[in-house]
């Protein structure tokens, strides 16, 4: 039995077409399913527990990042794989799974490739894979190296040299017991998907080095991180700014099986 959960408000009602496509596919595959449509995310807390049963083999979420986050918050610790059909205004979580369209979601559900992912949390929002915290100018620099119109534009604007990168004084508390102080050029958090990695996050911090154009790398493993910077820095997940500093980021202690596009299955990840 599959459970289809749809949020009516996702993507201005765009769920309906997706719902029909998913249901049609499940019928063809002769998979039993139950569809639950909520008018509002606040209804999930009441509806979800009664909709799940021991027979639920997969939860298919039709919605965007907000709907997915809400459902992850409510899903029991039992390992029920989740599949996302991206019909929300923001679909960064599903895009991270290689699913950026309804068509890809249908393919992934049919293939049923699932991998265990550790989720990270920043405020009420979840992320997976990695996120970056850096001055906006430094994030723009990533695009400079890519040929194209933006590359040309940024070159015209003068963003050409590595030493143009901003370094912002910041304090970072790791697991509430280590305090890191330095001028941050970039901070990348990579979630560790292996369940045995108890701390959950690999934190890479790049600071400005002693000489102009030099950078220094710092590495930590942690389960939580709080960053305060002299100026507010964006927290980027995928292509979206999901928060700004000051911010506290935590890795969930558990991993969650999620259906992915077969294109993104890495060799070093665990299969669910």
């Amino acid at each position: 039995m599959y459970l289809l959960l749809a949020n009516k408000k996702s993507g201005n009602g765009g769920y309906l077409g997706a719902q029909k496509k998913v249901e049609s596919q499940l019928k063809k595959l002769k998979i039993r399913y139950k569809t639950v449509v909520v008018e509002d995310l606040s209804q999930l807390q009441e509806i979800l527990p009664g909709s799940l049963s021991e027979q639920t083999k997969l939860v298919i979420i039709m919605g965007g990042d907000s709907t997915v986050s809400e459902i992850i918050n409510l899903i029991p610790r039992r390992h029920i794989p989740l599949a996302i059909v991206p019909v929300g205004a923001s679909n960064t979580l599903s895009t991270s799974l290689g699913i950026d369209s309804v068509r890809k979601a249908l393919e992934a559900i049919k293939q049923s490739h699932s991998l265990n992912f550790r989720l990270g949390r920043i405020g009420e929002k979840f992320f997976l894979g990695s996120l970056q915290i850096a001055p906006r100018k430094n994030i723009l620099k990533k695009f400079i190296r890519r040929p194209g119109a933006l590359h040309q534009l940024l070159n015209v604007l003068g963003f050409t040299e590595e030493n143009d990168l901003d370094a912002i004084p910041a304090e970072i508390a790791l697991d509430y017991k280590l305090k890191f102080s330095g001028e941050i050029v970039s901070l990348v958090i990579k979630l560790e998907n292996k369940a045995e990695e108890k701390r959950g996050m690999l934190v890479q911090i790049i600071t400005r080095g002693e000489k102009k154009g030099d950078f220094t790398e710092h590495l930590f493993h942690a389960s939580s991180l709080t960053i305060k910077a002299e100026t507010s820095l964006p927290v980027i997940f995928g292509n979206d700014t999901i928060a700004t500093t000051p911010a506290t980021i935590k890795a969930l202690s558990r991993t969650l099986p999620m259906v992915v596009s077969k294109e993104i299955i890495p060799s070093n990840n665990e299969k669910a």
Partner: protein
Amino acid sequence: MAKHRADFADFKNPDTLIGFGVSVEGTLEAEGDVQINGKFKGRITTNGDVIIGDGAEIRSDIDAQNVYVAGEVHGDILAQEKLEILETGRVLGNVESSALSIEPGGILKGKSSMLETSESTPSTTPTYEVEEEGEEG
């Protein structure tokens, strides 16, 4: 996890790396190798090895398997296996290890005592304390 002299400069994939130019304070509890090239104040505990790089300033006790010191450590060191103080290394504190080596130029100001290893036999391996002082500056 014994390492050869040639490996001292850097760990390939340290669990924790504190680079030049930053300061870190607090309790560092790692599960793997730790390399510190910057400033650290607090306490370091790991089940792996610790490298204190040239130029690093540490005000901390260290508890690890092997400890290699090329920078400056103010604090006590407990190395379950080996403690090596390299030619640029300075340790101002008491050290306890199963094996100790100090390169010419390296400084230890404090008491040194040997841990009894499982292979050691008390009748033939004496436990002793030494105090070595190198020239400062």
